[in-house]
C-alpha cells in the first residue's frame, strides 16, 4: 500500500495514488500529473514516483 504520508514533510500523499497510477498508465507525463495534483515539494513527488504496489502479490501467501 502507498504510505499514508510523505516520509519527509508529512503531507498526505496516499489520496493521490489512484489518480496518479491511472493517469500514468494512460501515458501522461508524471511531471504534469504531479503538478496538477498539487505535490510541489520533491519529497512528496518521489513518494509517488518511486512507489511499487506489492499488496496484490502478497495476497496469495496470506
Amino acid at each position, binding site marked *: 500500500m502507498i504510505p499514508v504520508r510523505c516520509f519527509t514533510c508529512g503531507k498526505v500523499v496516499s489520496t493521490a495514488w489512484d489518480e496518479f497510477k491511472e493517469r500514468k498508465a494512460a501515458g501522461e507525463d508524471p511531471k504534469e500529473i504531479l503538478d496538477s495534483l498539487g505535490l510541489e*515539494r520533491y519529497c512528496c513527488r518521489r513518494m509517488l514516483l518511486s512507489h511499487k504496489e506489492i499488496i496484490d502479490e502478497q495476497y496469495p501467501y496470506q
Partner: protein
Amino acid sequence: MEIVFGRLDERVAQFTLSSSSVAFANSLRRAMMGEVPTLAIEDIRIYDNTSVLFDEMLAHRIGMIPLKTDLSRFVRKEDCTCEGAGCPHCQVTFTITIEGPTTVFSGDMISDDPMTGPVEANIPIVKLWEDQKLVLEAVAVLNIGTEHAKWQPTIACGYKEYPVIEITDQCDGCGMCVDECPRNVLEVKGQTVRVVDGKLEACSLCRLCEKACIGTGIGEESAIKIDTDETKFLFVVEGDGSLSAQQIVEEGLRYIRSRSDTLVEALQEISTEGL
C-alpha cells in the same frame, strides 16, 4: 514585533515577522511544530484482522491519518477530570467493521463523536479480498508533536531571513548574474541590474549571482551583494488539515506567551525567596 500575512488559506499561511530576532523566530517555528496539540489515534484494539498487513503495520497507517480537531472541546488525558480513565473530553473512539472484497478508506472509520473525523475520507488503509475481514476499535487522544510526529499539526513549517540585495556602482549590466539566478529574481535595466518588482522574497540566498559576477573578472569584490536582515523573517506554515493555518500560528504564539509567563513567575519567586 509585527506579523504581516502575505497569504492565509485554510491550509497554508505565509507571513513576515519583523522587528524580531533569530531566537524568537526559531522558538515560534518549534512551538508551532512541537507544542500545538492535535488529535491522533494512539491505542488500537484489533478484534479481527485477516488482511495481508500485520496488525502493527495497520495500526501505524491508521495512526498517521490526520483528524479534524476542535481544540476548545478537548483536553489532554493527564489534565482531564476523568483522571486518565477516558471520557468524551479527552478521547474519541473510532470503529471499523468491514469485509472484503473492498478497499478500506479513512472514511470507513465510524466516530463516536460526530464533530471529529478524518480530514480526508479517501486515504486508503488496506485492500481486502474475499474472506478477509477487519474489525477494530481505535482511540484518538490529544497530544503534541514532541511526543510523536502524528500529533504535529504542521507539515512544511519553516522560515528564512529576509533577503537584502545590494548592487554597487561597479555593475556594468553584463547580465551574467541574471542568467545564473535560479529564481529569476534579477533583470537588466539599462546599464545595471535590479531586482524584479515583487520578486525579492523569492530569493533563496544561494549567492550564485555573486559567484557569477566574480566570474566575469570584475575583481575581488562582486558588484552584487546578497545579505540578510536578521530582524525580519519570512515564514511558511503548512497545516495537515487537523487545525487551520491561522489556528496553528495563534496557538504557537499563545504557547510562547504562557511559557514566558511561567518563567517570569518562577524568577520572581526565586528573587523574593532570598529577601
